[in-house]
């Protein structure tokens, strides 16, 4: 043993020092490279996020605006009220769309059916409703000629907002030259305006892009989330409390625990299949209803709430429980009086995050028929409805250029909700975070 020690030099041999020094450059270059890889990776992720968000905002902000045109329309008395009687019931039933069309044709006298269709295609199919509202608000205008602001058609809307290039050759442009000429004239006369699109927030879905709104989907999401919350929150909290505070440590509770962890990682679409097979086919609950959607999403959200709830309960120190037990409180009293209130912020945070996940979920809802085209605003959890992400999916599937804008606009609204929810969760955590 002492032999080997004697053989080795006391200090570093100069050769060794050199060897280390010679390699230093290479090693530091490798170090720098490695560091750059890390920065590049983070840069890539952040760039993709920025790219994603800018694409959405770039395409979507215009969805919050809508083009209106001012049309001179002769409100012919004999067409609005053929019987001569002017009362609300008659006024409400009249065909204003045709009236509008006739006024346009009389004024610009297009030749041929196609030219006529192009002319009337300048205004929205829903324009008639605006005229009706105008007339109903002031029935004395019947028989006169009025200038009324009505929404432009989706193509004109796109053109005015710059979504369609005016300088393209006519053949590859959706707006033809004669339409463009009239529009230019209107613009000169100040008859074209872009206003805030309130309809986007107050209307249901529509086949016509300029009429389509997100309100129906918002209402559907609302009812779905209510059902999800009512089911998932109490059941999730009860499960978390049971497993953490009451359950004996045995095979059965182990099984439940493993089960919950695995359930958290089951693809969401499988929950949709479960909903389809069990809720729709076996229990024969209504298709496309927020009730079923909410039940499916509740099952999907449960593991998130349970896992975060258990973490929050675990964070309450045992001394609190011991103090309460020491005063003769029963297990349920200890839990409901002390442990649960103390862990509530944590449980709420987990619940909000779970709900945010559920709000953005699409796939399982496709399975239970929430993908239907629903125009009416749902009034309750059993009405046919769609939800925001599914609405976005439906719009994204529509071929018209104008729906790209709607899709992005819908995404902005959805993201706004999600950001609000997550911010709320963060605030809650920051505000009530307790260090024991």
């Amino acid at each position, binding site marked *: 043993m002492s032999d080997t020690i004697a053989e080795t030099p006391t200090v570093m041999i100069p050769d060794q020092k050199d060897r280390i020094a010679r390699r230093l450059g290479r090693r530091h270059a490798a170090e720098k490279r490695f560091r750059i890889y890390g920065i590049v990776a983070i840069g890539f992720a952040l760039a993709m996020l920025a790219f994603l968000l800018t694409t959405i905002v770039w395409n979507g902000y215009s969805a919050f605006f809508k083009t209106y045109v001012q049309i001179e329309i002769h409100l012919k008395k004999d067409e609005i009220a053929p019987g001569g009687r002017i009362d609300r019931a008659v006024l409400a039933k009249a065909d204003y769309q045709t009236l509008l069309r006739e006024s346009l044709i009389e004024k610009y006298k297009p030749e041929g059916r196609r030219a006529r269709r192009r002319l009337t295609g300048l205004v929205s199919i829903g324009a008639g409703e605006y005229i009706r509202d105008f007339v109903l608000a002031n029935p004395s205008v019947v028989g006169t000629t009025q200038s009324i602001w009505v929404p432009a058609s989706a193509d004109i809307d796109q053109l005015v907002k710059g979504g369609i290039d005016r300088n393209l050759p006519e053949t590859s442009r959706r707006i033809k030259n004669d339409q463009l000429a009239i529009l230019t004239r209107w613009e000169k006369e100040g008859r074209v305006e872009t206003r805030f699109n309130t309809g986007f927030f107050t209307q249901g879905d529509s086949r016509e892009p300029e009429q389509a709104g997100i309100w129906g989907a918002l209402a559907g999401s609302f009812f779905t989330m209510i059902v999800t919350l009512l089911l998932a929150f109490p059941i999730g909290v009860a499960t978390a409390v049971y497993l953490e505070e*009451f359950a004996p440590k045995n095979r059965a509770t182990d099984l*439940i625990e493993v089960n919950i962890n695995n359930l958290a990682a089951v693809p969401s679409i499988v929950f949709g299949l479960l909903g389809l097979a069990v809720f729709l086919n076996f229990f024969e609950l209504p298709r496309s209803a927020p009730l079923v959607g909410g039940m499916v999403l509740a099952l999907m959200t449960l593991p998130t709430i349970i896992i975060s709830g258990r973490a929050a309960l675990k964070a309450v120190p045992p001394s609190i429980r011991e103090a309460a037990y020491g005063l003769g409180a029963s297990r349920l009293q200890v839990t409901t009086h002390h442990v649960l209130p103390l862990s509530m912020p944590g449980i709420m945070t987990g619940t909000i995050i779970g709900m945010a996940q559920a709000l953005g979920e699409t796939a399982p809802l496709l399975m239970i028929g929430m993908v239907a085209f629903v125009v009416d605003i749902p009034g309750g959890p059993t009405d046919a409805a769609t939800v925001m992400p599914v609405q976005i999916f439906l719009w994204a599937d529509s071929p018209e250029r104008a729906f790209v804008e709607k899709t992005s606009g819908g995404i902005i609204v959805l993201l706004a909700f999600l950001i609000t929810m997550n911010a709320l969760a963060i605030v809650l955590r920051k505000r009530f975070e307790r260090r024991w």
Partner: protein
Amino acid sequence: MNYSILLLTLVALSIVGYYMGRNRARVTADGRIDRLHSLPSYYGTNVAIWVGLPAFILFAGWAALQAPIIEGLVFGSLPDQIRMTVNGDLLATAKMTAAQKTLFLNNVQNIATGDIASQAVSDDVRRAAAHYARLRGLSFMMMIGAMLIAAAIGAFFAYRAINPTMRARNTVERVVSGVMLVCSTLAVMTTVGIVLSLLFESFDFFTKVSPIEFLFGTDWSPQTAIRADQVGSSGAFGAIPVFAGTLLITVIAMIVAVPVGLYAAVYLSEYARPKVRSTVKPVMEILAGVPTVVYGFFAALTVAPFVRDAGNSIGLDVASESALAAGVVMGVMIIPFVSSLSDDVINAVPQSMRDGSYGLGATRSETIREVILPAALPGIVGAVLLAVSRAIGETMIVVMAAGLSANLTANPFEAVTTVTVQIVTNLTGDPEFDSPKTLSAFALGLVLFVVTLCLNVVALRVVQKYREKYE
């Protein structure tokens, strides 16, 4: 909606029971609460439970069982032969197929609830519908009666049992913990429900298509013909191209997500200053919070055309629904998943390992490559497995950006389809419930569930073991 009024009534009755029970407890103790075994509110709660719980269980059972019973009664009361439509053929009731039964029932239900039936229906159907409506009404009345009787009996006994020595608190706590136990079995029930429903429908599918063909066939075209004599009417259900497509997109996603996520995690945990870390980390988490439908839209609208144009400009033939576009976007979605899991894993490596390596004069990158990553390897493998399971199960991105046709190819520029895409397309629209096309979705769902479950179980095990090692 009648049901919700009924349930609200029940809740109201329970509340009344609570106050009555509490008062009676006070009265029996002559106003001296210390003579009671439990606080008066427990006596009240006890009464409330006895009013509400049995009636509610009755309600749940009734609601679940009434549909099949009523349907059975309706079928039982049918004449031997019926017509579905006014001019339809006579059908022998005993020999109706499942599809005919479903159609018949749908018509009956639609008429009974006042909705318009899909076709002109025969008198047979109308008669059955009237019978059905009568039975439903009767059932509802009976249910109300039974619930009220149950509530009354419960209230009577619970109320009478109140006396100072009664252990109301213990009873209440037993019931509460029982309810909690039931809640916590719901997770197990969900799993059982998933397994049973998938198995059940898949079994149906496998009676029509052999499992061998499904698992090993290489031709997937699930369209079944409208007419029996149409060309290719049978449909082909060899799922290999679908599995291969899923695998291809998953591999592309992993090629993006694993290095980026891992390097990001390493940089954030080993290099970044705390300030940088605490800002960059939550920003990266935003990527995980973006709904998948948004990624799908992004992939279809922006990335896929970009990939196609870029490919075309260098002379490659790229499909507009290329696997590459869907895979890359999916990878981006999974980056934060990989990075936050790896971050946890890397942070679990004890500081003493780093000290040992730095103490020998290793640079940071040498320490990371030679010591930290090998030490964290099991945990990272677990994280990657979880990410793979996530990628396989991801639906919206591929539904919106990947193709529908099942190509058996390893070329990332071609369009492929995935398991989840096929599930969605075969089940949306107007599914006929017993066509092989619809049922194939459940078979695919079963495969998806089994594969992801295995991945999850293995991954969670590995991560668990790894954590135990350093705790």
